[in-house]
């Protein structure tokens, strides 16, 4: 079946794909941090533009990118309408007695721009390496083992559960079940989710037994071979500089 994989295009070749995973995670995290905390509209626009350039360099298909971003936009776009009417400040215009403020509009645009650029950066980071590489890079960066394991098992079993859900769903379909907006369909859906929880609980038990039988003692170790070369340091330096540049220029000027 077709899985909604974030790392479907991890095998492409681009400077961002070849960037060392650890350096990628660090520099993109710093980049995202600065993008999210920007307060000037012009810099936010530049950041969005920069995120676009990075996606362009990474050669990720635009359709794939848009497919991921649309869900985020669905959540943030309403702010563009809500903020102007709720934030206080100088009046821009009045619609049916409701005041629309200039500050609110700027704030709304800032929220949308920040969120979109941040999500695009995260996507560029995650989609340009295989997810198991991401996990290993985090492991190498000494991220707490508990977090790594949670991420690892989520990644491993999300597809197994998806398959399990689809099997049940098809079984229901083959017995004539149709999803309708009524109580019966809702309760059936509830049953399916309940079954999924029971099944995952039982599977967790079996997985744990098999982990024990392979000598698991609480801390999974793995072997990683990453190799940082001069180029990786250069790209990391470049990306981080771009992130801090607007702040430095503001202080200097």
């Amino acid at each position, binding site marked *: 079946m077709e*899985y909604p994989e974030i790392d479907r295009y991890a095998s492409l070749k681009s400077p961002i794909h070849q960037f060392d995973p650890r350096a990628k995670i660090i520099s993109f995290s710093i980049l995202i941090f600065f993008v999210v905390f920007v307060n000037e509209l012009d810099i936010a626009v530049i950041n969005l533009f920069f995120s676009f350039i990075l996606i362009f360099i990474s050669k990720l298909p635009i359709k794939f990118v848009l497919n991921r971003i649309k869900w985020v936009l669905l959540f943030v776009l309403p702010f563009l309408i809500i903020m102007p009417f709720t934030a206080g400040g100088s009046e821009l215009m009045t619609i049916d007695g409701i005041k629309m403020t200039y500050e609110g509009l700027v704030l709304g645009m800032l929220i949308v721009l920040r969120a979109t650029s941040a999500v695009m950066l995260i996507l560029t980071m995650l989609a340009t390496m*295989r*997810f*198991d590489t991401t*996990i*290993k890079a985090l492991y190498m960066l000494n991220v707490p083992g508990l977090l790594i394991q949670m991420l*690892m*098992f989520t*990644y*491993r*079993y999300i*597809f*197994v559960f998806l398959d399990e859900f689809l099997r049940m769903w098809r079984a229901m379909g083959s017995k004539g079940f149709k999803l309708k907006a009524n109580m019966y369909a809702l309760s059936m859906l509830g049953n399916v989710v309940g079954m999924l929880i029971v099944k995952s609980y039982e*599977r967790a038990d*079996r*997985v744990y*037994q*098999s*982990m*024990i*039988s*392979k*000598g*698991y*003692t609480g801390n*999974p*170790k*793995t*072997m990683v071979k990453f190799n940082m070369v001069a180029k990786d340091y250069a790209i990391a330096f470049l990306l981080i500089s771009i992130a801090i540049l607007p702040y430095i220029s503001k202080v200097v000027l």
Partner: protein
Amino acid sequence: MTQEAISIRSLNYSYPDGTKALEDVTIKVESGEKVVIIGPNGAGKTTLFLHLNGTIRSLEDNVNVFGKNIGRMATEERIKEVGIVFQDPDDQLFMPTIFDDVAFGPINMGLDEGEVERRVKKALATVGLLGYEDRVPHHMSYGQKKKAALASVLSMEPRILVLDEPTANLDPRSRVDFIRVINDLNKKEGITIVIAMHDVNALPELSDRVYVLNRRVVAEGSPRKIFSDISLLKENNLEAPEVFNLFKVLRCFGYNCDDLPLSMYEAVDVLTKTIEDGNGHIHLHIHEHTHEEVKKIMYSYNHH
């Protein structure tokens, strides 16, 4: 010199709700032996296996592996002795890539990187999955996952290999591959094999000795002895291999042989011998009781 690989003495186990899963189970397996445990669904085979590597620890001192109590062994020592291959490979492959899964055991044993890599390579080569190191399990077929699960246990190079339903749900080709791999491990590396399965047609190739388990050990003996006992088979929802049944029917038609063959290989041997002894012919005939006898045999194998 034969050494006792597994020794279980009157083992009892009840589920937390009080249901008895194992009652007074005594099993002995010699080093280098192939033993198959058969029995109906829910007979306690999986529970028994969980005792074999200390996942479930018996409170009494009665589960020993190579003379040592498995419950008291250190983790690293334990996984060197017994490797368990579970039924569902999705339970056994829990790491992001195949390499990570096969390397999981060796890394836990504290081996250095070179040795871990050597073992991963060897284990994958044994099951025929070299080059799959970077694959993720959800991109592999069930048969491949099953082989990978076996490799992830082989990499620990255990002296005893325990397999739960190794041939279930495999396509015929993968099933044959799997049986060959298991037999090779037993013959070439001297690994002791313990298998639980329902696949009676594969059983003769995979076993020197059979235990019938139905919460307690109901019977024990050679495959031929077990499959000749029709009432035993009936009581435990079991069946004899097809080849064995066919030759039983042939016997009614006047075919003469002492030991009924259990597998295709044995059948070929037996047939060749009879034809050679009979100067190039086999004599079969129908006499007045033949149909009755055949009917009786057919009836005894239909469980209704």
